[in-house]
């Protein structure tokens, strides 16, 4: 296809991506260097008869509004926002490292800084949910592969539901069930004989709930892909393995799993990308007191009731984008090498 025809065909799509994905990234980068204007403060002298004169400082709302309107970006702040307490918190980290009582103290104090708190949960969620969901999906695929064909359709139908359903809605459904007045929460209370047990009250239990939700939501994707892969496992190889005396487990270990390996890489890549942006479950489970994620902190900055903290949200966004690039880099490097070898 000649260049001209190619660009004519791809132009609408490319234009949409450049305008609404590439340009916003530039916009985020610019915004992260600015910080919103401080309130304009004026000194007013009030003189009352007999009491003398007092000067007081007042916020000049009109002037503040005017200034914000004239320069919506705010004032230039350089990398200040990146380093402040709500982001990388370099000063605080330095202070913690200089004066602390052992490793546990360092960890707990760093965990109290908002950015590291969000990062800790985001990374835990990404790297716990992805492998466990893939493992569960693989087991389901093996199980479904063995049931009579007549039941496969309905089983696949129900298996797709946790993945297809809107993430916020799925999270809400599980949240209601696991609340102390819901069926799961009440059952847990009576099983553990602890009438005050609430999944929301402790940080550990909240994390576990969110991770369980993540596995429930992500397993069907692995299941469907692995199940399709199982249909293409070569029978000759399986049979020769049987003749060589491989038992059931060895056949799975040495024939089926190597056959599914390329699929597993693909699933892992997609799941890592999706889990890194974990956001809706935190809103759905109202878990922000005990678990926040990078996406949630951006959302929280933007949703501010009084001021929308564009600068702060943009700085977190930039740090998130750096995280995404680090996460993707092994894939990108490998693809680049393979492409050059061709």
């Amino acid at each position: 296809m000649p260049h001209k025809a190619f660009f004519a065909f791809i132009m609408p799509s490319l234009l949409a991506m450049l305008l609404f994905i590439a340009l916003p990234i530039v916009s985020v980068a610019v915004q992260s260097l600015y910080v919103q204007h401080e309130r304009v403060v004026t000194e007013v002298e009030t003189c009352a008869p007999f009491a003398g004169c007092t000067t007081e400082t007042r916020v000049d709302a009109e002037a503040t509004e005017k200034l914000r309107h004239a320069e919506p970006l705010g004032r230039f702040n350089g990398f200040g926002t990146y380093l402040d307490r709500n982001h990388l918190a370099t000063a605080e980290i330095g202070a913690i490292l200089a004066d602390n009582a052992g490793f546990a103290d360092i960890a707990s104090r760093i965990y109290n800084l908002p950015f590291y708190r969000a990062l800790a949960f985001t990374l835990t969620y990404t790297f716990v949910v992805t492998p466990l969901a893939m493992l569960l999906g693989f087991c389901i695929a093996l199980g479904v592969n063995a049931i009579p064909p007549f039941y496969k359709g309905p089983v696949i139908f129900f298996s797709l539901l946790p993945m297809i359903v809107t993430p916020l809605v799925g999270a809400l459904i599980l949240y209601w069930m696991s609340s102390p007045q819901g069926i799961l929460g009440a059952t847990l209370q009576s099983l553990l004989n602890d009438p005050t047990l609430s999944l929301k009250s402790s940080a550990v239990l909240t994390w576990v709930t969110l991770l369980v939700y993540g596995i429930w939501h992500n397993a069907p994707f692995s299941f469907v892909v692995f199940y399709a892969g199982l249909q293409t496992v070569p029978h000759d190889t399986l049979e020769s393995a049987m003749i060589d005396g491989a038992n059931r487990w060895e056949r799975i270990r040495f024939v089926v799993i190597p056959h599914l390996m390329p699929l597993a890489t693909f699933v892992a890549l997609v799941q890592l990308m999706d889990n890194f942006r974990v956001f809706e479950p935190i809103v759905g489970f109202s878990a922000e007191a005990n678990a926040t994620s990078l996406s949630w902190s951006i959302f929280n900055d933007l949703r501010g009731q009084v001021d929308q903290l564009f600068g702060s949200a943009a700085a977190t966004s930039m740090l998130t984008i750096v995280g995404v690039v680090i996460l993707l880099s092994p894939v990108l490097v490998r693809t680049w090498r393979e492409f050059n070898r061709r």
Partner: protein
Amino acid sequence: MIVKKRRRPLPLTVLSTTFVLLWVLMAAFPFIWTVWGSFKVEQDFFSRDSWWFAIEGPRTIAQTGSAFTGDGYYGAWVLRDFFSSVVNTIIVTVSVVVISLTFGTLGGYALARSGYRYTFWLLMLALVFRAMPHITLVSGYLLPFFEMNIWGHLPTAIIVLVAINQPFTLWMLHSFFLSIPKDLDESAMVDGCSRFQAFRMVVIPVMWPGVITTGLFSFLLAYNDFAVTAMLLSQPNQTMVPKIASFLGTIQQEGNVMFAVAAVVSATAPLFVLVMFFQRQIVSGLTAGAVKG
């Protein structure tokens, strides 16, 4: 080829069947439970005494005279105007699907038919774009959109969702177009078609399965989105998912939790129907990228 039936030992069969049953229960039970509970009153579905109340519904009978009540649905759809957000959702999803597929088929076709190196780079770029968390992009839109005075309108959210959708659509349609032989459009061009005519009249008619599958996924993205629609739409233009989230903010009032439950069930129902009718396409779409890529 004759596949010999492999015999499995009985304990293994029992174990694996139990496991599958357990999983189906885990996957389906929350939905069945919530659909059932949405026809009860709050004191039954969120009972402080026993969850058995949610099944029999004694308080529902006491309050409304029948074991099932549509009060939650009435409250959500009529009193809290869930209806208008349903209309907004329909407008948004239909537009997103149509525009995404138009852009995507053109772009995907070009990527599949051009042999130059830059197609590879465009696909890689699309992969990086696909990985961007949506909320980071939203934080880039907000200020410019406020300044341009286009914040809050449905068309803004639609074009943003189309753009966010493009990387995935391009990848998927590209792999579907690769499976259609090049000879088809080349012979049409020999017969005197222009490139676009060949695309429109020869390639697209054989591409329908791929287009439908990709359309399903575009639909799901637009329908399930929360980050973009919650931040970019003004109150009266809200779609279903942000509307449900806004119910949660005001659930202190009694009865409002059931409004949210009813709204959640209403928003899930179309997805049930979708999976029921298009199960085959969804499965093939999920595996298409994996098997070919």
